[in-house]
């Protein structure tokens, strides 16, 4: 029986508890929050026997095999390091750390201690993301991706989190190096990082405060972001984050030398984009039919998953956690390779550095600009 503990009993911890309790062979043995009342309410609702206000006490008294770190991002590094020092495997919520250097330190320490670490990029393990990965592994793209487009939106309107953030100049999210973006973009960036080659992709960033926020008197929070990424083998990617565009998308597109794929996370839709064209007018009539068939297939597949009670909103998280636990027990590779965690962190570092430096001007964004394209090599 794997003993699991949770540090940080805020909103996201509920999803972790649900997922952990759905997995056989593990038990939550302790909950910790610097606010003891929060740890208490968590333990009461999820029937966890012991709760604590310090990580040290929790780890020493419950001796967990795995610790889930679900605290605000500023604390991830220190808590994760402490848990690794105690010999615990780690699941760290996204964003993994504030800086890539911290990520490197944690992953190095984990490797030295033969411990496993993963990050909460659970969107990469949703039903549709897993189907996409299987297709890519089967060679559907016809080679490495030539180009990718990841769109990740966040609707600021009518959300308690957004209202609190916009109204409170001391809100903790404002203290993050990448502010709002740091807390939101890692899912979308990680999707790209999964398919990049090498540690040093180039990053070009353009970000700004949307007119909507400017009208609300906001000048700090960048909520519109466009990024161009290019890896060592010249595969390229666009990453877009927007609070204003509608629909508020969570999409990923990959284009290989032969075919492409389109993934919609919200609707759990995967569409194959056929590379070869039909002759003459057939191109106008056959693709719409095959697309309709694919949409129907997605509908049936989603319906089947729902009827099998395997279509939870957090099913990606459950799959990731289960895979992570299996990798620990079976001593197999972790579900999110460490290189991918690092590249995601480095891209985010580069984005925030460029934003704080003013970023490239909107009208001149040359791909081959050696001045604006920042290698994200950490050294």
């Amino acid at each position, binding site marked *: 029986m794997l003993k699991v503990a949770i540090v940080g*009993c*805020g*909103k996201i*911890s*509920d999803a972790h508890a*649900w997922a952990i309790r*759905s997995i056989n062979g593990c038990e939550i043995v302790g909950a910790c929050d610097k*606010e003891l*009342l*929060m740890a208490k*309410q*968590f333990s*009461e*609702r999820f029937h966890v026997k012991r709760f604590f206000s310090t990580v040290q006490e929790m780890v020493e008294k419950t001796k967990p095999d795995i610790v889930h770190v679900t605290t605000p991002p500023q604390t991830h590094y220190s808590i994760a390091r402490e848990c690794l020092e105690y010999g615990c495997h780690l699941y760290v919520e996204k964003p993994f750390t504030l800086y890539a250097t911290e990520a490197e330190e944690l992953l190095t320490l984990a490797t030295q201690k033969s411990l496993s670490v993963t990050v909460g990029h659970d969107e990469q393990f949703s039903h549709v993301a897993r189907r996409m990965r299987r297709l890519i592994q089967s060679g559907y793209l016809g080679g490495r991706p030539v180009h990718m487009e990841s769109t990740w939106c966040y609707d600021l309107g009518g959300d*308690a989190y957004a*209202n*609190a*953030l*916009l*109204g*409170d*100049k*001391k809100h903790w999210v404002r203290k993050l190096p990448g502010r709002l973006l740091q807390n939101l973009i890692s899912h979308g960036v990680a999707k790209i990082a999964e398919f990049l080659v090498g540690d040093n992709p180039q990053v070009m960033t353009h970000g700004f405060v949307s007119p909507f926020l400017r009208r609300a008197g906001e000048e700090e929070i960048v909520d519109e972001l466009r990024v161009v990424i290019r890896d060592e083998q010249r595969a390229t990617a666009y990453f877009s984050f927007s609070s204003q565009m509608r629909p508020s998308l969570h999409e990923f597109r990959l284009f290989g030398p032969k075919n492409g794929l389109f993934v919609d996370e919200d609707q759990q839709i995967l569409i194959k984009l056929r590379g070869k064209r039909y002759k003459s007018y057939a191109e106008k009539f056959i693709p719409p039919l095959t697309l309709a068939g694919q949409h129907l297939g997605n509908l049936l597949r989603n319906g089947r998953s*729902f009827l099998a*009670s395997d*279509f*939870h909103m957090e099913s990606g998280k459950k799959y990731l956690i289960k895979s992570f636990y299996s990798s620990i027990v079976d001593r197999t590779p972790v579900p999110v390779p460490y290189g991918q965690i690092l590249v995601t962190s480095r891209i985010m570092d580069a984005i925030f550095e460029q934003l704080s430096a003013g970023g490239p001007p909107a009208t001149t964004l040359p791909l081959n600009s050696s001045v604006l394209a920042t290698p994200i090599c950490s050294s």
Partner: protein
Amino acid sequence: MIIDLETPVLVTGASGFVGSAVVANLLEKGFRRVRCFVRPSSDRTRINSLVRQYGSRQIEVTQGNLTSREDCLKATENCHVIYHLAAGTGEKSFPDAFLNSVVTTRNLLDASLEHACLKRFVGVSSFAVYTNRDKPGGRLLDESCLIEERAELRGEAYCYAKVKQDELVMEYGKQRGLRYVILRPGTVYGPGQKTITGRIGIDTFGMYLHLGGSNTIPLTYVDNCAEAIVLAGLREGLDGEIFNIVDDDLPSSRQFLRLYKRNVKHFRSIYLPHFVSYLFCYLWEKYSLRSNDQLPPVFNRRRWHAEWAGSKYSNNKLKRLLGWTPKMSTGEGLARFFESCRNGRHA
């Protein structure tokens, strides 16, 4: 009164629908040092209007967050009566609702006890805490009725947080000598209120399902509610008491809906008889359990009993111990509410 008009009083959640009415009531009574605690992100339209009307000498607006102990210490300084209305309303997340209702209340209580000048803590709770089952008085829901013991199973973060908040206040009363009064308003309504209470029906599934039927709706007009809350902080000899707040002449759910459609706007609604809504809640609850929360248990039998089973309500204790009477009749209150809805001050 346990304090005079010069004594500082604190109102948390002062920019809210009920909180601003409490502030207005205190000012009308002549209190000259009303401290309003508001979050940085709060909409201050109502409070600013009161400041313009009464002047900044009588109203002190303090901005802060009750999750901060420092802010609580600052807010409670010299305050002899605290009206605590701030809460995690509208939260779907249990931890967020708990943080914004229970942790904040604990911080406020600790801070006020540290200053050692508190004469009364008025905690504003909700009807949501009652199970509405096994009532000693038959159909009558009053202050003696049972509280939801397993509030987490109701599927409503607000209910859970309010049950825990009340427990905390009572625990401070027992263990640390806190002098408190708890008030549990029914459904507060009035101009500026944005929604029709879920006790009447829901529009979750793209059409309006009328679930209340002939049930009495425990309405209280915002100014009547504010009057009860203010009196609970001032009257002698109320320590440890709990009061439900409802008005007189309460309408049935069907009557309310009919009046709303006639006076505000017409829309299609489908009435679900009680046995159908109970069956729906029962099946949803079972499916939620069987599917390991694939559908979260937002409809369940506990909620059905609390919101749609129906009860009678009493404000006898309120009238007897506080000397409260509703100044606004239900007929007039509804007329004003409908008028504000017609004028677009509702969603």
